[in-house]
């Protein structure tokens, strides 16, 4: 073998050694799950890819895998999230809380048996720890109960939900199971307690109404059902993990620019807010972003730009009361009162508000149309009254409705709501008078006929 041959052979051996070393290292090279990036807007996709790149720098650590998993989860990439949680699990982190998120992720994919196993594993870990996190224990039981309900296994769901009874929503779900399995009276006890703790919510009052109905208590059923007409509050449920999901959604992608724009607006930095909002809108169009940008233009007295944005929004998703309201405001800014009037009148047909009526009354006064001004003033009072009525503030609602019928006596709903307010306040005579006035305007107005009937049967 010549010297050259020996040198070449030596180099080859060196190469092979290097290849072996690289091969060993390669076993530890990060492999991430496939993502169809077309599902996500570009700024968001880029931010997630940046998180992936950060993970590549320290693939043995738990934190970046958990972070990426939660990000995938937040944006609907559930199989990818599950893959990350598996990686977290392999790295045996000290904090077992990831099992809860993993369970949620599996649950979102409908893998209820697998998700339950994660919660149960977490419960075992927490039980071994005297400083266990009680709220996490409750959440695990709650989610186990939910999973059993998804599997239509009511007896097991019931057991789990009892374990999670510290969570009001768990107790509510329990009452749902109880009313459907012939135990409405038992459900009522829980519902009464929930109503005392969280008055007044739509869900609890509706369930009370159904439970009373099952028990044959017709009047009570009607009373609780009517309560649901005077509240807009649902029985809340708070999950700290879901709060973090919402935060993540608010701070990633183009929506983050929109949220920053809101903050800048609050600080009075309108030009900066406008630029950031425009950037966000350009990345992905949404109605909220378009409205915010239009509002900023209005604040900066760019009336034409504001109108153009809203008109574009109407072309995209149709008109709404708030869109037409903004066109009205911008039109006034441009001195076009006729257009403002048209826009606001159209807005009231979609969703009437005191503010719209106030503006219409003002325009009517300005053009000397006292009759219209009075009509709109009456409807402003009606809408004020309705706002109070829908939150069960009947004392505040009453004078508003009285003013409404005085100024807009031909407005049927003002008479009807006045009658309802009187009835709930116990003024039978006042209620009857007002119902009859509404029926004078429309003899077939069914709600007034029902009201009169309930008045007579009380």
């Amino acid at each position, binding site marked *: 073998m*010549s010297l*050259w041959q020996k040198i*070449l052979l030596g180099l*080859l051996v060196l*190469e*092979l050694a290097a*290849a072996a070393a*690289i091969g060993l290292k*390669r076993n530890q*090279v990060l*492999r991430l*799950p*496939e*993502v*169809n990036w*077309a*599902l*996500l*807007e570009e700024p968001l996709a880029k931010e997630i890819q940046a998180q992936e790149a950060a993970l590549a720098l320290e693939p043995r650590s738990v934190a970046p895998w958990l972070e990426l998993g939660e990000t995938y989860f*937040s*944006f*609907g990439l559930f*199989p*990818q999230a599950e*893959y990350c949680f598996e990686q977290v699990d392999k790295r045996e982190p000290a904090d077992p809380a990831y099992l809860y998120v993993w369970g949620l992720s599996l649950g*979102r*994919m*409908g*893998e209820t048996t697998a998700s339950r196993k994660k919660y149960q594993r977490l419960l075992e870990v927490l039980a071994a720890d005297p400083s266990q996190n009680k709220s996490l224990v409750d959440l695990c039981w709650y989610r186990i109960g939910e999973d059993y*309900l*998804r599997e*239509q296994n009511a007896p097991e*769901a019931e057991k789990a939900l009892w374990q999670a009874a510290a969570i009001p929503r768990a107790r509510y*779900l329990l009452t*749902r*199971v109880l009313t*459907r399995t012939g135990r409405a009276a038992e459900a009522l006890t829980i519902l009464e307690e929930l109503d005392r703790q969280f008055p007044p919510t*739509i*869900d609890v009052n*509706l369930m009370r*109404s159904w439970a009373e109905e099952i028990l044959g208590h017709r009047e009570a059923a009607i009373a609780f059902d009517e309560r649901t*007409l005077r509240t*807009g509050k*649902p029985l809340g449920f708070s999950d700290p993990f879901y709060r973090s999901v919402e935060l993540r959604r608010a701070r990633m992608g183009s929506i983050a620019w929109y949220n920053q724009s809101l903050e800048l607006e609050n600080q009075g930095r309108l030009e900066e807010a406008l630029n950031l909002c425009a950037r966000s809108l350009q990345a*992905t169009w949404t*109605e909220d972003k378009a409205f915010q940008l239009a509002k900023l233009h209005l604040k900066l007295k760019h009336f034409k730009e504001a109108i153009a944005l809203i008109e*574009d929004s109407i*072309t*995209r*998703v*149709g*008109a*709404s009361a708030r869109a037409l309201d903004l066109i009205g405001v911008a039109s006034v800014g441009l001195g076009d009162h006729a257009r403002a009037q048209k826009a606001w009148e159209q807005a009231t047909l*979609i*969703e009437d508000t005191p503010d719209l009526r106030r503006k219409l009354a003002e325009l009517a006064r300005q053009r000397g149309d006292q009759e219209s001004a009075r009509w709109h003033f009456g409807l402003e009072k009606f809408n004020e009254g309705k706002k109070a009525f829908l939150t069960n503030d009947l004392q505040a609602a009453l004078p508003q409705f009285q003013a409404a019928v005085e100024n807009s006596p031909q407005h049927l709903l003002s008479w009807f709501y006045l009658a309802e307010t009187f009835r709930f306040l116990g003024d039978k005579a006042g209620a009857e008078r007002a119902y009859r006035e509404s029926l004078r305007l*429309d003899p*077939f*107005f*069914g709600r007034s*006929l029902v009201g009169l009937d309930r008045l007579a049967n009380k």
Partner: protein
Amino acid sequence: MKHDGVLSPKSEPLAARKASRAWKGSGWLTFLLAALVLFPVGLLWALRSPGRIRLPSKVPVYPKSDKTAFQRLPIGASATNRATRITNVQILDFDKDGLNDILVCDGARSSVILYRQTSRGLFEERVLGSNLQVPAHAAVVDINQDGKPDVAVAVLGRIFPSDELVGSVVVLENKGDWHFVPHVILDDVRRVADVQPGDFNGDGKVDLAVAVFGYARGEVLWLENKGNWHFEQHQLLSKPGIIHVPVGDLDGDGRPDIAAVVSQDEEEVWAFENLGKGQFKSHQLCFNHNFDVGSAGLVMADLNKDGRLDLLLPQGDNLEDPYTWPQPYHGCVWLENLGNWQFRPKQIANFGGTYAAAVGDIDGDGDLDVVLISMTNDWGDLSHPSVVWLENDGHQNFTPHTVDSFPAGLVTVACGDLNGDGEADIVAGGLSLPPNIEYRVQRVTAWLSQPSRK
């Protein structure tokens, strides 16, 4: 050197043997050099980006049927600066010209639109009503009995969940020559999702059943026609998330009954037995402990052709969170009418994100098949279907077949014969809501039965 077919080195001349040795020496060198150069190249190739892991999909994919084929056809123009928010499609012959048309509720355009089939396969657009804030459903019926079809429209008021009193029922009175006059016959109610006609009190006038969806609270109403566009409102049920109120004679007594599906975590099906003279008796037909099952509609049809109207319950609405995933329990339940207000539920298909069902004889074999569409599937994988049909073997055993995987995000479907071949074609409408970007969505799409498969 070849000699009688045998290669013999000994027989080579000296010059040739020297050349051969020289070649062998240089061959080693060439080999080593080549190895030195090629090895790193190969190594670099092997060390290129490892690529991503393709995670196995757990979402079921159904094969296409070898007996049927469909031709996809977009209906109406799509505009890039307009959101896709079709809420309802129906196939009917509006103008009675013998060609079926397509009636569409378009939430983005706040309009009820008729795609009128002027000749086979050609559709012209007619806006029947506008300024309708998210029309959710339209029922064609001659309400004032003047011989012209009017259109009763369920107006949601808002597409996003809300308990605000923004819903209404508007009747578009047909004045002829494609001129319609709107009459608001119900307002100051929560979001209205459906309206269906029927003479419920037997007075010869067309009354209306109304599904008030709302959000946390909703109701089933019937509106008694008092004439001159006056309707008296009667409540039948107070439950949240009423989606559809199909009308039909469920007990065979000759009077129209009303069925209703309750969603929003309650997941129940109710029927209101018409006792005559405007009196109803309510029956809870079934409920589901799974609060998450996502009832998405209710279809009335005599699926097994036993003379009793059955109900089909598509399930798969999981819009509680903006980012969704198909669930194993999504699909379609057949509530078989056994008579005497007994209904037997049977899951006839599992299909993730099922949002609507329609019934028709897709394969022309004389029995009724079912079409399902999906709103929320795993759209990242292009193989996942958005439209499937369930082939009925004549004994109500159903085999799912994929019709198409495009477009995605479908929320409404109808069956009817569009091309006049006597077999049911399919029309579906798409809807996309933020924060999801519009990905593979389309307003209205038809799938026509292919003549070649006959």
